[in-house]
């Protein structure tokens, strides 16, 4: 396999590091391969090394062809979601040292079609996000006048700021049990964003959005399983947002 043929390159890695782990990377190119297979690499690491850095280390020294999406390396762009040791996480926000395991397995996120290896297609997430009208809805003339802010108290800001932290990484959609079988479900990411705008004191589009998500594959397909919130790397808590949103629809809140 790859690491034997490139063994000499291995020697050029700065070997300040005392420890190493086995990184198992799922490889699959739907255009050429019939099934997913794993490749194993031995990667040195420091206490601060992230899984993304380990993957890029492999890409650099062992196998240039690993397909992986990344950019910011600081958990703000949402590129690097993948399944790491069985759970959806951001590769750049998961340190090897915190996984407590000598073997680290990385796989592409579930519930997203695979492009290749660890890179998955996001079109559906972008579409559902688009669908919930994620922008302030108000009279056009109010929006285009730009001489003054819409006043908003810090308390009003607090009502939605949490949901505003969503980086569209898709981890929640990957963890949600409904998404596991329902390819038409809007999903926790988009529903949380619907709530983000509904809860914004500057917005007047509540009824509009409630109508959109009141669909046979809309908000009602959430069963408050909570997995979305458990995997969210940014503290968005989509499960909360969704239930609060549904609170409006059930008449618990207005």
């Amino acid at each position, binding site marked *: 396999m790859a690491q034997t043929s490139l063994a000499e390159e291995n020697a050029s890695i700065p070997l300040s590091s005392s420890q190493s782990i086995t990184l198992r990377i799922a490889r699959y190119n739907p255009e050429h391969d019939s099934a997913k297979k794993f490749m194993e690499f031995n990667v040195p690491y420091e206490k601060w090394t992230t899984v993304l850095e380990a993957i890029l280390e492999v890409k650099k020294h062992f196998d240039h062809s690993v397909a992986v999406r990344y950019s910011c390396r600081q958990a703000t762009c949402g590129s690097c979601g993948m399944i790491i040791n069985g759970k959806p996480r951001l590769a750049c926000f998961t340190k090897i040292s915190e996984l407590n395991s000598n073997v680290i397995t990385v796989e592409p996120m579930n519930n997203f079609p695979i492009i290749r290896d660890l890179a998955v297609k996001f079109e559906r997430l972008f579409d559902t996000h688009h669908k919930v009208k994620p922008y302030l809805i108000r009279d056009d003339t109010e929006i285009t006048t730009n001489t003054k802010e819409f006043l908003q108290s810090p308390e009003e800001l607090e009502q939605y700021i949490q949901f505003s932290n969503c980086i569209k990484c898709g981890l929640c959609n990957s963890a949600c049990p409904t*998404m596991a079988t329902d390819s038409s479900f809007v999903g926790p990411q988009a529903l949380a964003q619907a709530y983000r705008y509904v809860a914004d004191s500057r917005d007047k589009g509540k009824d509009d959005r409630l109508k959109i998500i009141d669909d046979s594959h809309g908000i009602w397909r959430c069963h*408050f399983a909570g997995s979305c919130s458990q995997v969210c790397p940014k503290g968005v808590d989509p499960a909360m947002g969704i239930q609060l949103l549904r609170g409006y629809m059930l008449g618990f809140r207005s």
Partner: protein
Amino acid sequence: MTNQDEHKAGIGGMINPRRYGIERVAYLLMRLSGLGLLAYFIGHIYETSTILKGQVGWNEFLELTQTNAGHAILAIVIAMCVFHTVNGIRVMLGHGGVGVGKPARPDYPYIPASQNIRHKIGIYSAIILAAIAMMYGLAVMFGE
């Protein structure tokens, strides 16, 4: 697009209760108990219809159910019923936004407020109550 192409976790991923804590277990039990109850309910309607066949028919059918296996099934039905009801009430409250926490600025490390102790207690009580009810039912049925 086929299931394979979409790379969906599929039914296995949907029911896998191991990765995401007790909330996910509750989700699964809710489904199973709902389906179980529906099955029992259909059976129950059929069962009771035998009364139209008069005393003989009724007793014949009753005998079928008054076996050990029948009692065991009924005990499970009781458990499902209690769990489904108690958890159902929890779920309905949750769906209405009750007890799911208040929006607030999250601080790292992020602990989702919706996955809170109130709901965990709700889930555990549903399970415990179901167990108690099942035991009670077994005691009544086998106690005779």
